[in-house]
């Protein structure tokens, strides 16, 4: 990519990418730590995830501010314009991903780890697939790699399948253990949070495709 004649424009675009990457890294970490806290029943670690979400909110505001400034002062065109818009949308979506991680962390105190709820063992696997999707889509964004973005979309099915199997297992568990329904319900919400993170990683992958090519990812590509 050639540099802009106005160098400060390149600096600002780089800054925008940097902020988005930073948000992405924090969101990824939040998912990991929230699920680890859940598995260990670690309330302190869970509280740290909830606390850390503020940083992500602040970064989202910074990205928006910078994007508005870029549009107002640089009037970006073509791929620059798509880059700025995508950066802003990325930040919004990453903020919501981080909210899901925060919600998971908030539920840690509701789960009594001494009660063995078998379906819970699937959650870390699900979190790792969703987390990897997020990780890979951030790399795809940094490299404008359309193929990598497409591969992220393909993995959403796996997260959905895991969610469906957890859903069925938890419903069965609730019927058999009416005393633990509220705990199982919390786990169901956690599974739903992780399933949403997979969806959002897919949305991010579609944004990468648009930023790189100017075209929407067609339905066929998303489904395959």
């Amino acid at each position, binding site marked *: 990519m050639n540099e802009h004649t106005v160098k400060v424009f390149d600096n600002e675009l780089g800054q925008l990418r940097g902020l988005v990457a930073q948000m992405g890294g924090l969101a990824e970490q939040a998912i990991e730590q929230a699920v680890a806290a859940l598995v260990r029943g670690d309330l302190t670690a869970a509280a740290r995830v909830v606390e850390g979400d503020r940083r992500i909110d602040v970064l989202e505001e910074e990205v928006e501010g910078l994007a508005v400034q870029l549009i107002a002062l640089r009037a970006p065109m073509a791929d620059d314009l*798509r880059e700025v818009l995508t950066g802003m949308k990325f930040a919004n979506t990453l903020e919501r991903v981080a909210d899901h991680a925060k919600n998971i962390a908030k539920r840690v105190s509701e789960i009594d780890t001494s009660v063995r709820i078998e379906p819970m063992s699937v959650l870390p696997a699900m979190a790792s697939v969703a987390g990897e999707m997020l990780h890979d889509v951030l790399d795809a964004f940094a490299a404008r790699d359309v193929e990598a973005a497409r591969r992220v979309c393909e993995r959403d099915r796996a997260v959905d399948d895991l969610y469906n199997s957890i859903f069925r297992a938890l419903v069965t568990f609730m019927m058999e253990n009416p005393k633990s329904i509220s705990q199982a319900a919390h786990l169901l919400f956690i599974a739903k949070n992780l399933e949403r993170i997979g969806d959002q990683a897919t949305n991010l992958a579609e944004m990468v495709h648009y930023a790189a*090519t100017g075209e929407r990812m067609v339905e066929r590509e998303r489904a395959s």
Partner: protein
Amino acid sequence: MHAPAPTAAPKISARHVSVHYGRKQAIDDVSIDVDMENVTAFIGPSGCGKSTFLRTLNRMNDTIPTARVAGDIRLDGEDIYAADMDVVQLRARVGMVFQKPNPFPKSIYENVAYGPRIHGLAANKAELDHIVERSLTRAGLWGEVKDRLSDSGTALSGGQQQRLCIARAIAVDPEVILMDEPCSALDPIATAKIEELVHELRGKYAIVIVTHNMQQAARVSQRTAFFHLGTLVEYGVTSQIFTNPRQERTKDYITGRYG
């Protein structure tokens, strides 16, 4: 060559146009259609040939002794370089507005009335008055000058002078209006008024505008042609050119990476 099918029958159809100034080639094999429904913007760096090409459309290059034009340019299917083409008549049909406002050193009224008078478009004073009023109204200037039509055209502000020049072009009832950087000498408010005027004139005349200001091209046109080193690099729907250009050179230029 990237020339999308226009939405209607082309008003101007140029094929394989090349222009030389002496030995130097300024335009190399450009083909393009311009229609009535869309404002067409020509963009490109200085020296890319966009103004030269614009000037072939009403044979303004005829006034430059060393200029040679090859190729085929048709206005409603009629060869404008045909031997029997009346160039004065052609320039009435294909009017032009220049970079610097250049009103005649005459009254506002006379600036607009001059063309219709020499082309015999008005039978009497009342008809001429009507043409002057209609042209100034269309050019968005009537309200500002109607009480001082006998003042000199050169006494107006730059933006008003440019609208006076547009009124002058409109007065002879042209089919096409060529604008060569019509706002580059104007302040932002005068520029906005000209741009608004271009919107209003769209559909009544085929409009081609050459501009260095890419935001302006994006704002006023529906079709954009990017010229570089005498060639037409890309011609397409304006929104596509500015969000997702197909050619690398177009992208580098509009995003400020050229050169």
